[in-house]
């Protein structure tokens, strides 16, 4: 009898605890969200403010103009140098005696694992969800032009990096801003470098961290059922902490090995779905082109499609943002420009290939609801987004699209999202750390401070709502682009000199193939 009473009491207590937990948890999530939204709102609205009298954000114009200028200035380098870039990655120009150093392929793979990720899965869904199929057209265009921006920044990143006596290197926009500006005798390089570093830290905490944690949580709760975000946050934070602070390389190594396979699996699945609906390919591209110029009744019309396309492309491939310049600067190479050539493949793979596939799958599987009579896409009640089947947004929309073809794919996608999110966080923790050490100096304890802050933001990101997180993430990453592109304009003649010299030596046979 005694025993039974105890049991009942224990059960009651358990039930009470269980009912109290979600309520308390929900309020933690809500509080985090409230504080977060109110403290970052001003920054977001500044970055995304429109040209007076229009609904066109100045930042999107800034990126488009920059990518166009680099494309013209370097004479369509993204198309001219494309075959040579492939040859470099294949190792045709690598001296066998340098074996054991980081290869061009490895540099590309590592930089890609930082950019291929949620932008390609969730970001595209956001773009198509708001901008309609037409957003895809602008995304592809932004990807193609972004190749020139990436080429410029990565060449500079390698050229002006710091090399230390122990053989390690530090590089990135903050280094070409200070050293490059000094070389050209232009002031304010140091000021720009500091500004960039601040934004880079915010970007690392935002897009490189909170957005990832947020969408990973969304995907997990999509599969296992709703539960408070801070739980995912704590688990993620613990693993990230183990890797970046604890130096447990094995976790990172496993991820870095699994991520490429996940990427291939994702692209493979998308390809199969596209081929299964091969008769719809023409129609889907028709929707994309038509939507690009007419808007097809999407939120914000044609300008809405364009803005979303460019926004998500920039967020996904990070061209002009400066992050890739930090990643490539670590690679040892005799010719800085070869890293530029290799890096121009990144926006191509990331945006032109992978993002387009995601978009096609979403469009072809009929996730966007259109009016049967007018064939125009219907808007949500607020008019801000397109109506989707079951009202899915972000990564849930992509998941629904893939699952409509393969039911089991949502589980694969959940694992892929977690791994992509994780590898992107590891990459961005490195970018953020480089900006941090540029500001505060290198040193063990200073580095630990940043790494701990980074882990705390994982929890915040997983707890907050998608809206404020995505806005802040975008804003911080675009703020990096504002500063970085100014520097690219100033330093682009140096890149041109490198390019001409390299191409001349390539033509004369001084630079030759080893195979």
């Amino acid at each position, binding site marked *: 009898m005694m025993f039974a009473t105890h049991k009942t009491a224990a059960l009651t207590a358990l039930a009470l605890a269980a009912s109290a937990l979600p309520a308390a948890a929900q309020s933690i999530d809500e509080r985090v969200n409230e504080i977060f939204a109110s403290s970052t709102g001003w920054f977001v609205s500044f970055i995304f403010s429109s040209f007076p009298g229009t609904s066109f954000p100045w930042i999107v114009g800034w990126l488009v103009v920059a990518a166009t200028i680099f494309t013209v200035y370097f004479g369509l380098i993204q198309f001219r140098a494309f075959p040579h870039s492939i040859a470099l990655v294949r190792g045709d120009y690598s001296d066998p005696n340098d074996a*054991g150093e*980081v290869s061009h392929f490895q540099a590309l793979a590592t930089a890609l694992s930082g950019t291929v990720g949620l932008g390609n899965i969730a970001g595209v869904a956001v773009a198509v969800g708001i901008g309609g199929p037409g957003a895809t057209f602008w995304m592809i265009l932004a990807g193609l032009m972004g190749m020139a921006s990436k080429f410029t920044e990565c060449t500079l990143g390698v050229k002006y990096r710091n090399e230390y006596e122990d*053989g*390690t290197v530090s590089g990135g926009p903050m280094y070409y801003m200070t050293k490059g500006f000094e070389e050209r005798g232009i002031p304010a390089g140091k000021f720009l470098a500091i500004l960039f570093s601040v934004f880079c830290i915010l970007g690392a905490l935002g897009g490189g961290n909170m957005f990832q944690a947020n969408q990973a949580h969304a995907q997990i709760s999509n599969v296992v059922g709703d539960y408070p975000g801070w739980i995912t946050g704590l688990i993620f934070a613990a693993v990230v902490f183990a890797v970046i602070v604890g130096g447990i390389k094995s976790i990172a190594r496993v991820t*870095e*090995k699994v991520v*490429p396979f996940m990427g291939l699996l994702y692209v493979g699945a998308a390809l199969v779905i596209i081929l299964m609906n091969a008769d719809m390919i023409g129609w889907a591209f028709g929707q994309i082109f038509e939507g690009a110029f007419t808007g097809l009744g999407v939120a914000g019309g044609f300008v809405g499609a364009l803005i979303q396309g460019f926004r998500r492309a920039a967020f996904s491939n990070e061209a002009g943002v400066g992050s890739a310049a930090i*990643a490539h600067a670590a690679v040892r190479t005799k010719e800085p420009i070869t890293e530029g050539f290799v890096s121009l493949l990144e926006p191509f793979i990331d945006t032109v290939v992978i993002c387009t596939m995601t978009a096609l799958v979403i469009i072809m599987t009929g996730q966007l609801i259109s009016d049967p009579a007018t064939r125009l896409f219907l808007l949500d009640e607020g008019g801000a987004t397109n109506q989707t089947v079951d009202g899915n947004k972000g990564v849930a929309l992509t998941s629904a699209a893939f699952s409509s073809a393969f039911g089991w794919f949502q589980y694969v996608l959940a694992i892929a999202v977690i791994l992509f999110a994780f590898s992107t966080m590891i990459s961005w923790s490195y970018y953020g750390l480089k900006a941090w050490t540029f500001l505060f100096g290198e040193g063990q304890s200073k580095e630990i401070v940043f790494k701990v802050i980074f882990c705390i933001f994982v929890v915040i990101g997983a707890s907050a709502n998608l809206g404020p997180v995505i806005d802040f993430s975008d804003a911080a990453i675009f703020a990096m682009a504002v500063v970085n592109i100014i520097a690219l304009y100033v330093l682009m003649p140096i890149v041109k000199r490198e390019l001409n010299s390299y191409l001349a030596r390539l033509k004369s046979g001084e630079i030759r193939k080893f195979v």
Partner: protein
Amino acid sequence: MSQTIVVGFDASDSGNRALDFAIGEAKARGARLLVAHVLEWSPYTFLTPEEIEERHRRRTEELSRAETAIIAPVLERVRAGGVEAASELKYGNIGETLCAIAKDHGASQIVIGRTGHSELAARLFGSVAGTLAQASPVPVTIVP
């Protein structure tokens, strides 16, 4: 011109047996011995940003460690046996790199130790002996 025998050496037991065999062979033929040590390396593995940053320093360390801990004592041992010796230290796929070294030096044969991997491991990862059997430009001796 005297012959050159390439011996693929690692610090394992079978590597040592291969070396002893090669020394005997070189003595008998009046050949010179080229001690080749290859550090396994693929340009297609994946690295984290930190690993990329540290790669050059690591490579320098690995090379100097191999030079002092493996190459130098072996050269001494070979020369003590009265055989002329040289060394090659390279990164790459072990089998392919041994073939390339043999070709570059116009060697007359290659001697390696048996690694003793299980059949499954050899199937999964490929074996040095297997690669040499298929691709070697000169006769190969595998010492058990």
